[in-house]
């Protein structure tokens, strides 16, 4: 039987943590179970709320609809119906983007999930022109080592007949031929 500990995934320093190796009264054969895939799944009936519903309906028309904080004037996207800064209800809908600036990014080498692009790819935060906060997405049409903070980008949408009320309308973002935005100007939006 396989009383040999399985060290193929991680190794703990001796004495820090051990598992007992039990005696076994039956023959377990040459191929004992060492690991299992155990899916944990939760199914929700998700409703995004009124403000985000307005945003998602805008996406179906390839438009970014944020909402403005009445106190600070900042435009939040996706809107949640209240300003996260003042707590006040947002009262004005504002179209932002679609051009945007990368405020932060990450080169992903280990993808997971059914929709992950081939690795390595770049996930990034995209600050649409006129918005105070960034949208999450992935970069395309550029080598991963040429992405930089301040890079100007635009969304690449799915075909018109594929548009739904979903962020998946954006296939990815790609660079546009505009000068980078200095990082100084992105302060407060990172």
């Amino acid at each position, binding site marked *: *039987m*396989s*009383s040999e*500990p*399985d060290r193929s*995934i991680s190794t703990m320093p001796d004495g820090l943590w*051990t*598992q*007992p*190796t*039990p*005696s*076994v*009264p*039956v*023959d*377990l*054969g040459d191929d*004992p*179970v*060492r*690991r*299992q*895939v*155990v*899916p*944990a*799944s*939760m*199914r*929700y*009936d*998700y*409703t*995004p*709320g*009124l*403000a*985000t*519903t*307005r*945003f*998602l*309906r*805008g996406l*179906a*028309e390839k*438009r970014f*609809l944020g*909402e*403005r904080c009445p106190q600070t004037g900042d435009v939040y996207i996706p809107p949640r119906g209240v300003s996260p800064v003042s707590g006040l209800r*947002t*009262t*004005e*809908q*504002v*179209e932002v983007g679609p051009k945007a600036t990368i405020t932060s990014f990450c080169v992903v080498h280990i993808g997971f999930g059914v929709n992950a692009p081939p690795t390595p790819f770049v996930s990034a935060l995209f600050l649409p022109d006129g918005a105070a906060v960034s949208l999450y997405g992935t970069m395309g049409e550029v080598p991963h080592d040429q992405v930089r903070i301040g890079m100007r980008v635009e969304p690449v949408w799915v075909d018109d007949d594929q548009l739904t*009320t979903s962020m998946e309308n954006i296939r990815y973002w790609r660079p546009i031929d505009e000068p980078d935005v200095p990082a100084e100007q992105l302060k407060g939006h990172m």
Partner: protein
Amino acid sequence: MAADDDGPDTAGGASGGGDGDLLRAPLVIEYPFNRTTGPVVGAFVTALRNRTVLGIRAADGRVVCPPVEYDPQTGAPLHELVEVSDTGTITSWSWVDRIREGQPVQSPHALALIRLDGADTAMLHVVDAPGPEAVSTGARVRIRWADEPTGAITDIACFELDGGAS
């Protein structure tokens, strides 16, 4: 929608209005955990693959099934796996009428705590029974093994009522 909800002005006739039909969509959050079993649980599920059930002897001599790595009372490591029976006794149960996705039996069934013969603790599993009137605490049950065991708790397809009384 609530009649008193006044959304923001929809500038320029933005289509963002339409508050009347709030969006709604199915959302699945799923993690495909890849877990290491360790020597105790690994032995347990490997034995299930061979249609054998193992428990483990606790410090006070009781047999815990399914087996655990550490003593439930003292936390001391446990070392002696023992074979228990594929028959047992229902110690508690409830009837499941509404079947949800992923449940091991796709018809109304009992979820029961079952103390296998040779064990001193009970394990949670499904009892496939014609109806709640057929199930009772103290009823005798027997493992129905999966046709194609894989080395998982689901190698016990379910329990079925074991004909006669104990």
